[in-house]
């Protein structure tokens, strides 16, 4: 018996486009970002990029449907790990960026 594990984030590939947040049927993803101006000598108008500040998945709500993984244009989300994931506290199921990036 082998199934999916948990959903992991690759923060450096995330462009904060919000597609996963909007497509999630369980509304379990939150994303915070800000924009920064990029200095480009030949740019004719100010150029900005999104910078990811925080990304959380509330596994208490997540349905493991994988729509966020499917919809991500930059493959910044992926299946990882195994099925042995449970916690003794409800708030610990709300996982931030550091844990989403690190778990293996």
């Amino acid at each position, binding site marked *: *018996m*082998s*199934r999916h594990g948990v959903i992991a984030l690759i923060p450096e590939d995330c462009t904060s486009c919000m597609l996963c947040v909007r497509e999630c*049927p*369980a509304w379990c993803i939150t994303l915070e970002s800000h924009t920064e101006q990029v200095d480009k000598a030949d740019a004719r108008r100010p150029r900005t990029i999104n910078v990811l500040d925080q990304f959380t998945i*509330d*596994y*208490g*709500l*997540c*349905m*493991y*449907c994988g729509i966020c993984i499917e919809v991500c244009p930059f493959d910044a989300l992926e299946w990882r790990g195994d*099925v*042995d*994931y*449970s*916690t*003794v*506290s*409800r708030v610990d*199921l709300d996982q931030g960026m550091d844990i989403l990036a690190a778990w293996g």
Partner: protein
Amino acid sequence: MTRYRLRDEPGVAVELLNLGLACCSLEVEAAVGSGALASEVGTERSPDSTVLLVSGTVTHALAPAVLRAWERAAEQGPVRVLAFGACATSGGPYWDAPSVVPGVDALIPVSRYVPGCPPGPDSLIAALRREVA
């Protein structure tokens, strides 16, 4: 209430009170069917652990029954509660429905939360093992 023995922890007898309130309960049956949980019938030996397994959506209509089941089990001794699946954990996809309790921990103390919609039978076994072994 059924008594089971975890195949990988043969010394541990688990009294499993299965509150199958919705589709997650099918995963519990799958776990039993997989052989990882062996049911134990007619033994005199008292269980090592009593686990109240809440699998499924807890509605306000069912809340008194869930509370009563827990109270009845708690009278016999310590009970560990497994919130199995997103509904029992937080209300799941129905967290904003007025008829749904957003997590069984609003009614009774939960010792372990198993995420998933549904979590698979292997997740149940893994969580049970962590809880009782």
